[in-house]
């Protein structure tokens, strides 16, 4: 164990701990943009700079190993001044469209500018524009909002393993691009949206959720995905009793299988819930056509028909195809209905199909 003093508070951490972790353990709130605990360190945004007594330069806390007897200040005047300048530099290439931005209210850059009182940038107006709109239907890429934290590049490589994107060009002209700077659909991108999940600003946002509600307007409900058998958990974003999006929970306590990672279906394939084609009333066939009916009429009709068939031909002339998509509770009741109420074991579901 090694000993450090952080903002006047002494703490002990194991050797090899980074200064950022040590500061967080000491209760300091360090701003970070490029840092992501699940990804390899980039140390590029410099937002997490702190001052270590006796050192000539401020250090990026995320990539600096803690050393014995370090004395660290996380909000000293130099640190604050430095973070303000960093924010101004980041703002220089960040299109300020907060009022229409999907990430308004859940944008780290916005939060930090608010925290440090940075309203605009002395360096703005010089940079190039990246008017890149990708024609894919899943998410929007607006690189005029990109702050080059490279979290998207790292998550695409390290979590999904698609390796679809990387940094193209350098300096002011640096941007995130696929190979040959083409469309995502022509790259190895699998549209899992892990990049959207980790983007700290509004550079990458869901097109399916666009305009449907900002994060502070929605209620999030933790649930389990309805597609394959992996059992990923995520949150349904709800506004005015409508599902308007899906966001990930990255805490493994709530997301033990996927830790926030999803696939294209889980993240972008939810709007069938709100489809206009949903069945909203029972239907009964009459003269060859299905017509709307009340629940009582439809249920009576169903039960009477079942009774009649059972009386005439016995319970084994009836069968149930239950559902691999429905819940345990529903499957239990469905088979109980056929076994106990009707009296047949003709119960199956599409496990084989």
């Amino acid at each position: 164990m090694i000993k450090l003093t952080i903002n006047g508070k002494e703490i002990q951490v194991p050797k090899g701990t980074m200064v950022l972790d040590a500061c967080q353990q000491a209760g300091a709130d360090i701003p970070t943009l490029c840092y992501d605990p699940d990804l390899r360190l980039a140390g590029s945004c410099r937002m997490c700079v702190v001052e270590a007594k006796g050192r000539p330069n401020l250090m990026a806390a995320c990539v600096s190993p803690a050393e014995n007897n370090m004395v660290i200040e996380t909000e000293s005047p130099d640190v604050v001044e430095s973070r303000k300048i960093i924010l101004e530099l980041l703002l220089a290439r960040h299109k300020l469209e907060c009022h229409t931005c999907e990430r308004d209210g859940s944008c780290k850059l916005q939060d930090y500018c608010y925290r440090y009182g940075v309203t605009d940038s002395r360096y703005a107006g010089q940079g190039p524009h990246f008017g890149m709109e990708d024609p894919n239907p899943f998410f929007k890429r607006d690189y005029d909002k990109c702050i080059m934290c490279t979290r998207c590049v790292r998550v695409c490589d390290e979590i999904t393993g698609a390796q679809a994107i990387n940094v193209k060009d350098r300096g002011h002209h640096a941007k995130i691009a696929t190979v040959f700077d083409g469309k995502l659909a022509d790259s190895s991108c699998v549209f899992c949206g892990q990049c959207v999940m980790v983007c700290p600003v509004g550079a990458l946002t869901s097109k399916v959720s666009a305009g449907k509600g900002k994060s502070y307007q929605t209620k999030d409900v933790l649930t389990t995905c309805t597609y394959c058998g992996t059992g990923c958990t995520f949150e349904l974003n709800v506004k005015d009793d409508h599902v308007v999006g899906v966001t990930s929970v990255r805490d493994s306590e709530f997301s033990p299988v996927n830790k926030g990672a999803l696939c294209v279906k889980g993240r972008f394939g939810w709007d069938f819930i709100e489809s206009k084609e949903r069945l909203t009333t029972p239907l009964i066939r009459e003269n060859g056509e299905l017509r709307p009916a009340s629940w009582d009429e439809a249920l009576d009709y169903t039960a009477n028909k079942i009774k009649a068939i059972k009386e005439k031909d016995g319970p084994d002339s009836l069968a149930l195809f239950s559902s691999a998509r429905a819940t345990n509770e529903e499957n239990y009741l469905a088979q109980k209905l056929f076994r106990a109420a009707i009296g047949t074991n003709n119960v199956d579901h599409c496990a084989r199909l």
Partner: protein
Amino acid sequence: MTNSINELEKDATAIFLIGTNTTENHPVIGYKIRKNVRFNGAKLIIADPRNIELGNIADVYLRFRPGTDVALVNAMMNVIITEGLEAKEFIANRTESYEQMVEVVEKYTPEYSAQICGVDAEDIRKAARIYAAAERGSICYAMGLTQHSTGTDNVKTMCNLALLTGNLGKPGTGVNPLRGQNNVQGACDMGALPVVYPAYQAVTNAEVREKFEKFWGVPLSPNNGLTIPDVVDKAHHGEIKGLMVFGENPMVSDPDLHHVAEALDNLELLVVIDIFLTETAMKADVVLPGVTFAEKNGTFSNTERRVQRVRQAVTPKGDARPDWQIFCEISNRLGYPMNYGSPEEIFAEIRTVTPSYAGISYQRIEKTGIHWPCPNEEHPGTPVLHGEKFNRGLGLFHAIEFKEAYELPDAEYPLILSTGRSLFHYHTGTMTRRSSALNEFMPSNEVQVNPETAARLDIVDNEMVKLITRRGYIEVKTHVTEMVPDGVVFTFFHFSEAAANVLTQAKCLDPVAKIPEYKVSAARIEKI
């Protein structure tokens, strides 16, 4: 799965994938496997006729002829036995019928099977050595292994391989079916099968039946019920008169759709409970509107047997009702009262009749789900099965001979057709084809054709063709790609307007599991 998903990311030192295009059908599991291979150096063996994405990082890639799984894996076992790489202690202490298996496997030398499977004998040796040498070897498979007329044999052969190398009962090992639907595991656990009550308790076992009769308060049928394909056949013959279809779409998912359509038309009563007017619902006498996962509470059990919560986020649309209420209403009208106040009350009853779920409660899975078996409230759940002993005591080796698929290519139908899923759609497309982005990205079906095959047939990429089998034909556009080998074509089954299952056969199923042979049909392609 005998083991849990996260072991594929951390614990397995070798992973053998057979008949699973994991990154496309179980993407998140695919990420984990890739991570383990790239960052921890786990070895990867792939056996798949198609050139799946994980093939890029495989140590051995066996692109074998569809339907020859048993010959391939028997040869791997032949190598392991011949080279003395088997787990002698495990075999001696924890298995039986080893000798019978060895006897059968003897003739499956790599050279012999290489001829059958169309792969290099050396690659079979390499695969066998990697898997046998692994400290912790995991086998994963999906429908590519099981949807054959020899599906049960194929699975047993994988079990043989795991037993032979002692790769069971510890983290990072196991025989792991990656199941394709969110709650296919749970539907099986709950007894939505014709031969078992909840927790796989046989309906033909008098003692079990008595227990359920007492619990449910009515006499129960002592006879095994019918599987889906049998129900369809009997409906055809007029023996099944009434069918309730709940959240399924046999008019897209079942083999030989002309046959299915005729069977459904023959019914006196077809009741469909669903969220959309599916192809099956269009044939119904009564359609009852159920709700999506977003509008109800309950639990799903995933492929690793983890029971997790489903939570209601929005109220049901229009007059739609949570499905559990629909079953209660019908049951009450049939004179068998079912009164539950909530899904949690139903779950409480499930716990009492399902020993493997007995220790699981909504409260316990509020955050993290629990793996069954979980026999009591103190039990932490069981991520790894078969640790000390198998359910039956000793692990049973099966002596299995290779059998060819039912329908092989011939002069008239010279191609092998396989069907499966795309990353961008799910099953019969009921949900994904009504998800705007997914359907915009992939609005129609395709048939994947190898460039060599395409050249022989004088067809080009994106050309509309007729894909024909003995059952019928669909019109579909081509995707000329190295994804499939020469002579094999592949199409998706999500699209009702060009439905793959018009083409598949329902005549010869696996005799035990009654699974159709979706991975091998004889087919031909004609220009339009």
